[in-house]
């Protein structure tokens, strides 16, 4: 981002867009397409990453339907649902931030991103409360499992899937929050304009993916 300091403020109240990289010279549309396309491909890899875990879920659920049933009923439906609502709402605010950035309304985008980051933080706090409860109960994976209320065989396997999937997801929430913080700072500096808003769009896409993964995890772990 060396170019940032040299960029000038336009009359509309945002910085002039950075020049198109030299290997895309004369074809800014192709560059825009490339940046967006690259992000979509990256999201595809993320889906494949979680797909392996979903396969694991399917295998162990088929092996131990009863234990999965019992364990699911020991998760807090209230906390899980609250978290789902938090993430869904944050996805909305991120989409609105994208819309505002696209129209050069950097300040609006900044506040919307801040709200989204706060909701991501809220999600993590609730997740931490849930984890603490599981640790207290001994509802843990593998050799750490010591939860007497699950009588059916295969209880530890539920918690392997549970902790691995939600842990990996939480990691993605943290990465997503960092990305949103990064673009929020750039919004504060009024960097985005109708011709330059790809970072907001891509950070937003990542956040939507984090949301999407949770939309699958929530019913599989809490509801089914």
């Amino acid at each position, binding site marked *: 981002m060396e170019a940032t300091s040299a960029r000038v403020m336009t009359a509309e109240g945002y910085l002039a867009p950075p020049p198109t*990289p*030299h*290997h*895309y010279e004369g074809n800014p549309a*192709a*560059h825009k*397409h*490339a940046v967006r*396309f*690259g992000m979509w*491909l*990256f999201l*595809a*890899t*993320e889906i*494949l*990453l979680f*797909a*392996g*875990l979903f*396969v*694991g879920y399917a*295998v*162990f659920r088929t*092996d*131990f339907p009863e234990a999965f049933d019992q364990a699911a009923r020991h998760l807090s439906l209230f906390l899980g649902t609250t978290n789902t609502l938090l993430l869904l709402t944050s996805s909305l605010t991120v989409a609105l931030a994208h819309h505002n950035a696209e129209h050069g309304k950097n300040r609006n985008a900044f506040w919307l991103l801040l709200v989204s980051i706060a909701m991501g933080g809220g999600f993590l706090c609730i997740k931490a409360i849930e984890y603490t409860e599981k640790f207290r109960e001994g509802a843990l*994976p*593998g*050799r*750490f499992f010591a939860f007497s209320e699950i009588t059916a*065989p*295969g209880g*530890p*396997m539920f918690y*392997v899937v549970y902790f*691995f999937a939600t842990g*990996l997801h939480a990691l993605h929430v943290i990465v997503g929050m960092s990305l949103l913080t990064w673009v929020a700072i750039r919004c504060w500096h009024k960097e985005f304009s109708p011709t330059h808003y790809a970072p907001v769009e891509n950070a937003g896409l990542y956040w939507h993916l984090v949301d999407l993964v949770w939309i699958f995890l929530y019913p599989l772990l809490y509801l089914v």
Partner: protein
Amino acid sequence: MSSSASSAAAGGPAVFPEHHYLNNGTTVRSWLLTLDHKRIALLYLSVVMVSFLLGGIFAMVIRLELLTPGPTIIEALTYNRMFTLHGVVMIFLFMIPAIPAVFGNFFLPIMIGAKDVAFPRWNLVSFYLYFAGAVLALWGMLNGGTDTGWTFYTPYSTTTAQGVLPVLLGVFVIGFSSILTGLNFIVTIHTLRAPGITWFKLPLFIWALYGTAIIQVLATPVIGLVAMLVAAESAFGFGFFDPARGGDPVLFQHLFWFYSHPAVYIMVLPAMGVISETISAYSRKNIFGYSMIAASSLGIAFVGFFAWGHHLFTSGQSAFDAGAFAVISMLVGVFTAIKVFNWVGTLYKGAIAFTAPYAYICGFLFFLVFGGMTGIALATVSLDIHWQDTYFVVAHFHFIMVGAVIMGFLAGLHYWFPKMFGRTYHEGWALVSAALIVLGFNATFIPQFLLGNAGMPRRYYEYPERFQALNVASTAGSSLLAIGFIIIAIYLGFALKYGPVAGPNPWGSRGYEWMTPSPPPTENFDVTPTFAHPPHDYTEDAVGDPDFAHARTT
């Protein structure tokens, strides 16, 4: 036209261009922090060559150990570590990045008339991830004494006392690098084709890289997940793959081979791309069946995703699953055969120049067909039960993955050497080493086919007396191979500095990359080229004239 190109066209001796990517900045920093795809390719080349040397040394130690039925030079545990080192280094550090990250990085932008790949910074990040992952994996194996083999099968890998964590982390990081390279290539091919290069004017090497990149992007995340799961399990005893806790070791095999079978095509498809380029150049003939070769690259990439179950024939898969995976695996043979027929069709009535790269093309065709046919045999469930986990399998995948890939890599290295470094090598020595390598490779692995068929299992430290003759033959063959590679290192090293100046197009090739000076300028082309002809087009009269440049420049 550049000065060198025009002087060559005028019939004078080729002149080394004054400004090119190699001398545009000579500081260490200008190399280590470069965003030029050509320099990044050379960074990759240097690390890939060191990895190949290490993997080769490990292989020689294994072969020497197997010279006699009992203990020969190392202990049993060292032997296990040695084949792990050999497998991990050769697969993850050498073969997966070899052709895409070196020749792909160097030539993909040039072949589509672009100045660089879509994301030059990510390209450099990809190199450093690869480097970090390679160092981590190597250090992990040498220090921790990993003895699981490159497949990390559970439950052994999660219970062995030898360290597996750093290697798995290294594999994870290298996977990230591979994903970034593939992603970069796909976006580059979509968005940076010069005006005039339509999808069906893409050189076939680009089509092969495109198919490879799709596999890299879609399959690699799964090996990343598997590496994480195995690491977590060996560290914390989670039991994901441990039957004692309700886990499923066969699930590991499914997830592992979901990546590792398509990974074979990450290695072989680019080699096939190199062969499509070189076979046309050295037979001075239009490629036969361009669209069929391009389509079969995508076909292999697609079908390759659904064939992984052929590694689980004896793991308790249902008979139906085994049958289905067998049929799908054989489909790969159909697509490969389409390519082979088209290559042979290209040779037919061509004006063949028997150069070193051509020798490698011949070797490639032999290894691909022989390895492929044994692959079809192995995909036959009933036969596989006899050969599973024997040297027959070892010989088969060395023919396909190693034989074919090394042939493609060496064909590409010799074909493109003048373009990359502006100088030519000694053809006589090149032919000698090519002969040594092709013969040595056969001598190494044909005995292993026989050993496997006679029942010698893979990865065993000791074997019965009656297997010794064939093992000695195999070790002798691998020594020939080693000599061949040493000769290459000597004459190419010599040519780097003292080789005759190549000029822009020493082969008279019609590939787009030969339209620019050798070595190319940092911006790839001195003048913006137009691409009036399809790739691999040898139809005009001037074919064979090395100074003929078939593309007009504006």
